Every structure is written in structure tokens, then in C-alpha cells.
């Protein structure tokens, strides 16, 4: 059975601003739950997922670069590189907002920063 594996997120942009030095991007899509049980029901007869919620975290190495894009909003876009040299994927998340950041700068380790984001649309994953 064919499958694909991706790594190395590239070409990361929010609005018109590029985000350099990205190490990883977590994209989370969760849907709200709607539940109900009636008289005499041993199990919920209504259990549905409804509206989705998109959020995630971008991890990069550059605290100054992270500070420059914190608070920005726009379309978040990046590329997933195909490990097996097949077609890469472009992920586009419209209506994204980057919140603050958590920067870790240690004495004997490379700096690391996380940028949380939320978005008003589901990610669109498209082939290149």
C-alpha cells in the first residue's frame, strides 16, 4: 500500500512575512462535539463532530525572527518535503494569527522558540 512521509518544513510565510529557521510545525485540527441522550437510552443517540478548530505551533531557532512575526495575521503557508522525493505538499491555512512566543536561549544549547497560532479555516494540503 502506497504511503507518503514528509519532513523539513520550508517556505514558511505568514501574510507577506517569511519565517526562517523553522524546525517543526505542529498543525492541529479539532472538531467540537455535540452529544445528547434521551429517556431510556443506554447510550447517547446523538454524538456528532461539528465545527472545526485549527491551531498549532511553529518551532524555530531564531528568537529575534520569532519576535518579528509574533502578532502577525494572514495566510500561513509552508511546504512539506516528501522524504521519498515524490511530490511535496503545500499547506495553506487562511485566517491565521500568530500569538506571542516562548523563547528558550540556554548557555550551552542552540536557541529555540515556539510560536503558537490559531486560524479561522481548515488547512488545505495540496500537491505541487
Amino acid at each position, binding site marked *: 500500500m502506497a504511503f507518503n512521509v514528509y519532513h523539513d518544513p520550508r517556505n514558511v510565510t505568514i501574510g507577506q512575512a517569511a519565517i526562517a529557521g523553522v524546525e517543526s510545525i505542529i498543525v492541529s485540527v479539532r472538531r*467540537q462535539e*455535540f452529544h*445528547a*441522550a*434521551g*429517556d*431510556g*437510552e443506554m447510550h*447517547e*443517540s*446523538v454524538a*456528532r*463532530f*461539528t*465545527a472545526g478548530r485549527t491551531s498549532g505551533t511553529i518551532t524555530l531557532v531564531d528568537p529575534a525572527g520569532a519576535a518579528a512575526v509574533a502578532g502577525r495575521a494572514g495566510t500561513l503557508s509552508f511546504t512539506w518535503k516528501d522524504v521519498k522525493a515524490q511530490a511535496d505538499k503545500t499547506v495553506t491555512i487562511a485566517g491565521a494569527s500568530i500569538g506571542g512566543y516562548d523563547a528558550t536561549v540556554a548557555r550551552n544549547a542552540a536557541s529555540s522558540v515556539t510560536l503558537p497560532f490559531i486560524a479561522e479555516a481548515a488547512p488545505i494540503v495540496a500537491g505541487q
Partner: protein
Amino acid sequence: MNPKFDIYDLTTLAAAEIIGSPASRTSRERMPDVAGEFFQVQPAGAREIAVRGVLASAVKTSADLAAADLKAKLLAIQQYVGVVATYVGTDGRLYSGSLLSVYRQAGPMEVSAVSGGVQALAHVEAVIVAQP
């Protein structure tokens, strides 16, 4: 089963009732120098039945159409608030001469993907004033 007011289903899914108590109607009188009270017991008053459940739209091709369909259903049932008719409970019991006192949405409307399209759902609640 879905409770009905007259010929209208008050819910589509997950209907539940809370049967209230008949109201007691009693005249009470106290006499000087006599311990206790005298009660003149009258026939019982009405009882309230609280109904909750889920109202669902028809399956539509878009979320907007599903939401509009659900709102139309809700408003159609609300036209019977203040009307006296027969209420049929979730167990099929008939309560004749009942008043639909309240019928309202009890939470945000939500849409979900289902087989063949999109369906809108909302929790609803009703209050029936029934004869004892």
C-alpha cells in the same frame, strides 16, 4: 419516542422529560388556642413537564441551508406556544388539555456532516403545563 404537541414533534432526537408535581390546592386556616392547622383540600392543580431534546434539520447541501431549515422548524413550532392541545410524552402517554408554555433553543446551533450532506442540530427545551 419523540414527544408531540398536537401533531408536531417537539424534538427529532434524544427526547427526555422531567415530570413535575401536580400543584396542591389547599385552603389552610389557623384557630387561636388550637394547635396545628385545618386543611381544606381542593382538586390538584396543573403539573409542569419539562421536555428537552435535539431538533435536527433536514439533510441539506450546505451548512447555510441546513441552518435555515432548522430555524424554520423551530419558529414553526413556536407558533403553538400558548395553544392548548394534547401532549404525547416520550413514553406515549397522552396528556389532553395541555398548554405549550415555552419552546426555545437551548444552545448554539451546530452543523455536522452526515451521509448525503449537512445537517444542523440544536438542543431545544419545552415546558408543557398539563392537567394532573
